[in-house]
């Protein structure tokens, strides 16, 4: 058996005869304390991810609506500009009643 395989066999057998680790003698008291204090439950990762995705989607949809509103407003301004030029409603053409 070469050195490498011998070493691997030694490592694999290193857990032979392993004894159980000793538990903290105060474990039961700690459990009782936790039961009485009611340690807070943490939200599951799935719930947190669902909420993050929902909020991101909401922000994204709002941005789309906002951009769409902005471009509509811009278009409207351009139309008004075109109309005013068509009917020569610029400042200089307006009759000054003062």
């Amino acid at each position: 058996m070469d050195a490498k395989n011998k070493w691997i066999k030694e490592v694999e057998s290193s857990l032979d005869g392993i004894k159980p680790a000793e538990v903290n003698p105060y474990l039961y008291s700690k459990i009782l304390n936790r039961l009485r204090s009611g340690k807070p439950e943490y939200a599951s990762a799935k719930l947190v991810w669902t909420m993050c995705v929902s909020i991101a989607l909401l922000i994204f949809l709002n941005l789309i609506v906002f951009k769409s509103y902005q471009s509509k407003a811009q278009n409207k301004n351009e139309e008004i500009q075109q109309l005013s030029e068509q009917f020569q409603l610029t400042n200089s053409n307006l009759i000054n009643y003062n």
Partner: protein
Amino acid sequence: MSETEQILKLKTGDQAAFQQLVKDFERRVFNTCLGLLQNEADAEDITQEVFISVFQSVKNFKGESKLSTWLFRIAVTKSLDYIRMKNRKKRFAFFQVIFTNEKGDSKIDAPDFYHPGVQLENKERAAILFKAIDKLPENQKTAFILSKIEDLSYSEIAEVMKLSVSSIESLLFRAKQNLQKLLSNYYLKNEK
């Protein structure tokens, strides 16, 4: 007190029965968690959570399996959930680069795990073996730990993991093969 009587008393919230349950199973649950988590503080924390979970949900225990099988199952589930949670935290450690040295290696590497129950002359080799076990896929790791550390039979492991005995045999065979590959790579990198 028979197991049936114990379960009935636990369902009524009998504290003496719960204390007896903890006394009977704390060592086995702790060692199962320790083998999977490779950290004594984490294993103790998860062990507490296992018994709290048992206390809170024993009313729903239908008795289809033994109490010990149920306890092992909860211990394995909670330990694996904890490992997954730690791995998720690592993935989102955007600022980990702040703690890297010049070569770009992370300084936050898990320390070697020295199981307190391993014989002194085997401690270093066992630490290497535990590092390799930690790299196994979850199912293989679980089957290996339950077999090697808890000394459960194939049928007992099959009950805990809700798999067939042949699946457990296959998992253990693949676990041993993978461990040999990992150890071989380790030897070529470090021991030569």
